C-alpha cells in the first residue's frame, strides 16, 4: 500500500481530447461486452422492427395509396425507409434504460469518482448503441429484401447513395440515443427510462411521412410532418434509395432532405449531448 507521500501510479493526464476518446472507447467496449452477454436484449430489439416490416407490408400494403398507386409492391418500397428510420430512433429507449440502470446500480457513482473524461460514460454508451443499431439495420435490410423491397425501384441509384442513406440513418439513431441518455439520467428507474424513451417516439415517428403520404394530412398536421426532423431522414432515404412516395412539398426539409437530415441530426447531438453531459456532472444517484 502506498502512503500519501507516494505518487499514485497514474499517468499524467493525456491531452483532454485524446483522453476523452480513449475513455469513451473503454466504456463502449464495456457496453458491447454487456450486450454480447445479454443476447436476448439484442434479439428482442430485432423482433419488433421485423414484425413492423411484415405487418405493415402485408396488412397495409394494397390499401395504401402511394403516388396514386395502390400496388402493394409500391407500398413496400415506400415503407422501408420509414421502418428503418423508426427502428434507429427506438434505440433511444435502450440507451436511456442502460444509463438509468447504471445510475440505479451505483455504477455512475463509481465512474464519477474516477479521474476520467466527463462525457465518456455517455459517449461510450451511445457508441455501443450505434454498433447495435448498425447490426439491427443489417438484419432489417435483409428481411426487407426478402419481402420484396428493392432500391432503385423508381429511378436511378448506386451503391454510394445507398450507403449514404444508411449513414444518415445511423446518424439519426446516434442523435436520438443522446436524447435517450438525457432521459436515462433524468428518471429514477430503468423501467421509467424505457417507457419515457418510447412514448414520445410514437407521435414523432407517426406524425411524419414514414408510413403514409404526408400530403394527405390536414394542413396543420402536414406542416408538422414536413418539418419533423424524422421526416427529413425518411425523405432523404427515399431519394437516395430511389424509392417511391417522395413528398413534393415546398417545405425546405422536403426539398433538401439530405442536408436537412444532416443538419437536424447534428443539431440534436450538439444540444442533447451538452444537456446530458451537464446533467451527468451533477447527477445524484
Amino acid at each position, binding site marked *: 500500500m502506498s502512503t500519501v507521500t507516494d505518487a499514485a501510479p497514474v499517468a499524467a*493526464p493525456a491531452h483532454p481530447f485524446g483522453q476523452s476518446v480513449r475513455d469513451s472507447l473503454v466504456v463502449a467496449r*464495456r457496453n458491447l461486452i454487456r450486450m454480447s*452477454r445479454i443476447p436476448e436484449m439484442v434479439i428482442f430489439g430485432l423482433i419488433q422492427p421485423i414484425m413492423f416490416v411484415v405487418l405493415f407490408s402485408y396488412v397495409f400494403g394494397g390499401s395504401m395509396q402511394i403516388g396514386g398507386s395502390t400496388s402493394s409492391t409500391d407500398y413496400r418500397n415506400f415503407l422501408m425507409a420509414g421502418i428503418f428510420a423508426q427502428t434507429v430512433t427506438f434505440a433511444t429507449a435502450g440507451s436511456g434504460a442502460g444509463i438509468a440502470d447504471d445510475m440505479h446500480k*451505483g455504477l455512475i457513482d463509481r465512474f464519477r*469518482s474516477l*479521474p*476520467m473524461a466527463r462525457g465518456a460514460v455517455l459517449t461510450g454508451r451511445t457508441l455501443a448503441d450505434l454498433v447495435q443499431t448498425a447490426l439491427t439495420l443489417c438484419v432489417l435490410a435483409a428481411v426487407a429484401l426478402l419481402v420484396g423491397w428493392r432500391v432503385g425501384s423508381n429511378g436511378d441509384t448506386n451503391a454510394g447513395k445507398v450507403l449514404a442513406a444508411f449513414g444518415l440513418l445511423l446518424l439519426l439513431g446516434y442523435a436520438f440515443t443522446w436524447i435517450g441518455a438525457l432521459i436515462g439520467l433524468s428518471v429514477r428507474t430503468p423501467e421509467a427510462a424505457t417507457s419515457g424513451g418510447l412514448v414520445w417516439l410514437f407521435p414523432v415517428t407517426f406524425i411524419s411521412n414514414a408510413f403514409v403520404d404526408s400530403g394527405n394530412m390536414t394542413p396543420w398536421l402536414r406542416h408538422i410532418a414536413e418539418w419533423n426532423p424524422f421526416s427529413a431522414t425518411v425523405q432523404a432515404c427515399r431519394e437516395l434509395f430511389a424509392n417511391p412516395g417522395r413528398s413534393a412539398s415546398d417545405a425546405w426539409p422536403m426539398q433538401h432532405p439530405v442536408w436537412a437530415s444532416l443538419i437536424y441530426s447534428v443539431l440534436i447531438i450538439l444540444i442533447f449531448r451538452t444537456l446530458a453531459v451537464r446533467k451527468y456532472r451533477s447527477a445524484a444517484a
Partner: protein
Amino acid sequence: MPGAIYAEGLVKTFGDVRALDGVDLDVPEGTVLGLLGPNGAGKTTTVRCLTTLLRPDSGKAVVAGLDVLRQPNEVRRSIGLSGQFAAVDEYLTGRENLVMVGRLYQMRAAAAKARAEELLHQFHLADAADRPAKTYSGGMRRRLDLAAALVVSPPVMFMDEPTTGLDPRNRQQLWEVIKGLVSGGTTLLLTTQYLEEADHLAHDIAVVDHGRVIARGTSDHLKARTGGERVEVVVHEREHITTAAEVLRGFGKGDITVEEHTRRVTVPVTGGAKLLAEIIRELDTRGMEIDDIGLRRPTLDDVFLSLTGHAAERKDEETGEGGDEDASAGDRGRHGSDAGNRKNKKEAAR
C-alpha cells in the same frame, strides 16, 4: 497541517432538508475514522461530498492535500471509493471490471491487466476471475468492489457501509482485508451503522446525527462517557427470574432491568470480575440453572443511545437502563420520528 481528510462546516440541503448541517472532520494520515450513525444521519452525503460526487452548498473539504471543490479531478486520482451497493458491472467478469477501472484511472492497458491479476489473487477471486460478477456471492461482489477501489492503491480510501447486508463470516473476512489495508498506511474513512464494526476497525469514531458530528473520540473515550459496567444473567427457567433479580439486587449498585421474553436480568455493578464470581456462587447455592452470565462493559450501542436519545440500529435487546434517559424520553420520541421523516424526504428529494 490538516489531515489526509479534512472537512469544515460542510452544508448540503436537498430541498428544505438539511442533510448536512455543518460537518467538521479531521482524519490524520494513516488512520481510520469511523463515521457512525443511523440511516439518514448524513453519512453517505458526507462521503459523496468528500469524493467529488456531490457539491456541498458551503464549507471546505481537503482530501490528500487537494481542495475537493477546486481540484476535483486531482482528488479523484488520489482516492478510492467503495460503495454501499457493490458498484461493479454484473455482466462483466471480475477481471474485466478491474481492467476497466484501471483504464479509467488512466493506466496503460498492460499495467491495468497486471494490476487486475494482482488484485484478483489478493482478494481470493482468482478462481472466479473469468466469470461474470453476476454469478458471484454477496461477499465476493463486495471484495471485487473493494478491489476496484484499490486499483491505483490510492492514499485515501472511502468506504460507505462496506459490510451492510453481509453475513457474519463474510463480514469478518472483509474486516481482515480492511485491516490489512490500513496497516499498509492508507487513510480510511468508513461509514457504518454497525457499532461493532466501528469498534473493530476505527481508531477514531465520529458519531453523526441529523447532519452534524455530535461526538468524536476513540471508542474507549465514548464508552467512558456512558459509564459503568453491569452484570447480565440469563436464567434457564422463566420462574427463576424473580429469584435471580433478588440475588442481583444484593450485589448491584442501581436499578435492576428485567427482560421477560429473553429471561435476562441486568444490574449495574462496580467491582468487576470478583463480584461476578460471588454472584455465580450465590446463584449456584440457590440451585439455579443459568444459560448465560457475564460482565458487560458499555457497547457503542449504549453510547449512541445516550448521545442521540435513539438507538443506532434496531436490535432485539433494548438496553433499558439509566434514569437520565427517562428525563428526555419525550424529546427522544420526537427525535426518532424526525430522523424517519428526514430519511423519507431525502429519498423523495432524489
